[in-house]
């Protein structure tokens, strides 16, 4: 069907264009046709009488007043087929790995959420081999959980580790605002782990337009959701959602929206939620788990703050360690009562003691820590960090739990740890006879 083209562009902004047209649908896909014949995509985002506002996938730079706009009569879609596995795509869904374009079914992106009654209660632990995750903040299939970290922390390594060490059927990597070396790193890791043929990448690097970056999570999640509906267990990695939020802020600003906090649009929460909520364990099908990255300096910044209210916890990475405080898995209670009888209790006891020792750290700065118990708490804190908080130390859950008992016994008396007598009788190791902890590490 021949579609009408429009020529009288009214205004061109950084990512926005407006034009007079009629019969246009909200959210319709359009083409910007340059005088040279080149084409770029755009999407309708608002209508006001004849005035149509479009978001430009390639950005506004270089768009001229003699460009033409053609409305394509369809919404934004993404191709989907099993042949996408092993391939790399850009933020507008085009292959960028030099391979051929695929003949694929078109599926909608940013579709409605699944009916909550079609969700299952997440009940399956994902073993990652990372003690701070498996013991203290267990990851659960269909969980949505980001890593909170300062820029420069090894969060992408951890992301890639978790994705490749676990039993995911399909891995979708959504890279938003990646540096080129980060993109390269992901590709390399996936290939080294032999996971290439179960991975699809959607990549936006800093040289691409921000609108493409905005699209990446939607493309990754739409494709991931399709695999999940086929019965697969899908892992979607989104890095970095802070950059994504920043692009959202730029586009909202270009549309003269009233900013809420720190310039972010008032709907930041809803925007993030509609992406993260795609994570689900679907009744009668597979599951979709989302691991994200939220770079931040301060957890009260609007992006980590809104994210924390949406996701099912977060892993907090600091100085290369996975921190206990600040990290949380909201779904751990669904699974950690079925692992080993001591799991929950030792997790809480370790945390309580660590929190007590944090108090002593403050006190130490006043020079007021001199008693034996406090000094043992401080030692305990050091051992905890060395033995457990390294995100790249691989330990099976059971070994990690034994290690916890070893550490407790090394630093405390039985009655000091606040555990029930029953558990202590069952698990407390004799001082010095440790299963995992090396005696040389302390005393």
């Amino acid at each position, binding site marked *: 069907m021949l579609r009408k083209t429009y020529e009288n562009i009214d205004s061109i902004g950084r990512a926005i264009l407006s034009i007079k047209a009629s019969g246009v649908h909200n959210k319709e896909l359009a083409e910007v046709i340059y005088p040279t014949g080149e084409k770029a995509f755009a999407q309708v985002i608002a209508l006001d*009488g004849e005035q149509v506002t479009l978001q430009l996938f390639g950005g506004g730079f270089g768009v001229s007043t003699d460009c033409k706009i053609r409305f394509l009569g369809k919404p934004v879609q993404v191709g989907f087929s099993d042949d996408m596995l092993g391939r790399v795509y850009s933020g507008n869904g085009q292959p960028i790995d030099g391979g051929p374009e695929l003949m694929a079914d078109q599926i909608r992106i940013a579709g409605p959420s699944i009916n909550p009654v079609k969700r299952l209660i997440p009940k399956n632990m994902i073993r990652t081999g990372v003690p701070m995750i498996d013991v203290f903040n267990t990851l659960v299939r269909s969980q949505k959980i980001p890593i909170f970290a300062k820029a420069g922390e090894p969060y992408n390594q951890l992301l890639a580790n978790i994705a490749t060490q676990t039993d995911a059927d399909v891995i979708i990597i959504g890279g938003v605002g990646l540096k080129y070396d980060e993109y390269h790193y992901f590709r390399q890791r996936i290939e080294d782990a032999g996971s290439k043929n179960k991975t699809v990448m959607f990549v936006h690097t800093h040289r691409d337009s921000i609108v493409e970056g905005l699209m990446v999570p939607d493309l990754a999640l739409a494709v991931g959701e399709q695999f999940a509906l086929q019965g697969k267990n899908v892992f979607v990695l989104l890095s970095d959602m802070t950059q994504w939020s920043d692009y959202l802020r730029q586009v909202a600003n270009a549309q003269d929206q009233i900013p809420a906090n720190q310039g972010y649009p008032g709907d930041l929460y809803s925007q993030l939620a509609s992406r993260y909520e795609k994570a689900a364990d679907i009744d009668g099908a597979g599951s979709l788990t989302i691991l994200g990255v939220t770079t931040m300096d301060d957890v009260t910044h609007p992006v980590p703050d809104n994210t924390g209210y949406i996701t099912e916890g977060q892993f907090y990475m600091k100085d290369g360690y996975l921190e206990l405080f600040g990290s949380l898995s909201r779904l751990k209670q669904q699974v950690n009562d079925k692992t080993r009888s001591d799991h929950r209790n030792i997790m809480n006891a370790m945390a309580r003691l660590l929190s007590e020792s944090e108090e002593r750290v403050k006190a130490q700065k006043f020079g007021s820590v001199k008693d*034996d118990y406090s000094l043992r708490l401080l030692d305990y804190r050091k051992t905890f960090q060395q033995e457990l908080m390294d995100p790249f130390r691989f330990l099976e859950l059971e070994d990690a739990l034994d290690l916890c008992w070893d550490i407790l016994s090394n630093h405390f008396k039985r009655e000091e740890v606040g555990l029930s007598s029953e558990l202590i009788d069952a698990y407390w190791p004799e001082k010095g006879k440790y299963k995992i902890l090396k005696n040389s590490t302390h005393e």
Partner: protein
Amino acid sequence: MSKAKGRVISVNESLVGAKNTEGAVINGEVAYIILEDGKRLKSEVIDVKQGGVVYLQVFEDTGWMKIGDLVEFTGLPLAVKLGPGILGSVTDGLQNPLYELAKIEWFLERGLEVSPLDNTQKWHFTPTVQKDDVVTGSSVLGHVPEKLFQHKIFVPFSVQGEYTIESIAQEGGYTIDETIAVIKDGSGNTQELQMAFDWPVKKPMPFHERSVPEKPMPTGIRILDALFPIAFGGTACNPGPFGAGKTVLQHSLARHSQADVVIIAACGERAGEAVEVFKDFPELIDPRTGKSLMDRTFIVGNTSSMPVAAREASVYMATTVGEYYRKQGLNVLILADSTSRWAQALRETSGRKEEIPGPEAFPMYISTLISAFYDRAGIEKLPDESTGSLSIIGTVSPAGGNFDEPVTQATLLSTGAFWGLSRALSDARKYPAIDRIDSTSKYPSLLQKEEVLYLLELLRDGKTIASNILLMGEKGITDESYIRYQKSELLDSVFLQQNSFDEVDGVTNPERLRLMFNMVKEIIDAPVTIQGKEGIRSHFNFMRQAFLDWNYTQLKDEKFEKQKSKLLKLVKQMGYAEENV
């Protein structure tokens, strides 16, 4: 009355402008926008401007709408259908039952509407009025059994003036759509009545006679029941940063509160949390009734990825249903999680309307709306001398965990109890992480007033001594102070902290609360003669251990008494306890 019509003239996400082309438009009425594929999108008139321009907030995704699409106004405000069959159900923010929707599509496709209440189920109706009886709005016509209760069938509340019963259905099975009574006014006009009727969600139901909340509602959560209680008909808010335990607290309240009916309004929060409730509750037995917990529960879910404009509707709908069950003479509890998301939805719409923003871009009227919402809670004395109550516990999710923001502040002004959740406490795994010092309640506790003050004083002392220890070290304070400090720590860890994931410790009934308090008091009042911090700490460690072991035994179990006497013995020893408990 002919219905008004209009055409779409602008589309900006969920805010749609329409030009009124025929008939009169009512502010607040429901309108449908008809897309070119025939889908009907529900919306609500939120503003009428000059030149016949009407602003609609659309409860669905507005993709593929275009200029000129037809708008059909209904002449009716957004309403909820009230009648038997609400309990045990799960609906979206517009009262579409989710299980019914799932039979049509797995995903929440737009434009789908199903009957809010099952209109095929027959309810066994027993009339309590006779022909020629005089009735008016909210008079009781009879009752049907619904789950745990006799559900009263009312003359719709909107009926004004006196009517006589022309005919009333005989005892038997009827659906909610069948006529069960015909009433006649003074001039002979008749009206047919069914068991279910509509009520506009934004209009508070008038109280028959309002009274003051003064009876504590046991929640099973010790720190609340003892220190910061909520009353039947009262209001409370629990603001807190993410991860401080709001959700777990809400779930605990939903399970263990001694309300007759619990309504959960999952407003703009994670879908998974609502799923946990409606998949778990049918399996859980409420020890007070012996029936499934779901039988007393109604869930309204407009979760965070559902259309934003329906968040507001979901909160109001839950409240209206709550008011209706209060009229049944029941004690109703609404858990609204989270009111901040509702406020944010209002902010989004307000922004699109280009209203002049208030603090943090929230609309200026936000505080008025919040106060009016909490005002719908309360005690109602009913015509038959019975009372019903509606309590509201609202979660607030302040940006950055900072209570100094508009929604938290407005909420604090409107609620009777404040449970401030603290990240410091949750980091220390001291759950429930309700601030022991800053939280407040104006309602009476399950304990005596002086007992509450007694505990609060110890907690404050403990806090002061703790900061002294921080500055001066344990050696810098006297043994006496150290003992006081240990007592306050013990109170915190064995009484205020509670493991909500444990079947026994997770809920404490009033009887057990009393026993536990007495024991705590015993410990606090007992003189300790030990000298030296090490020995003191050890003594309290043993007591804590014994107390925790006691907390995990069933009340009335043999072990319970055994552990209790063990603990008492330890307390009475007053000195260093060598014996390993």
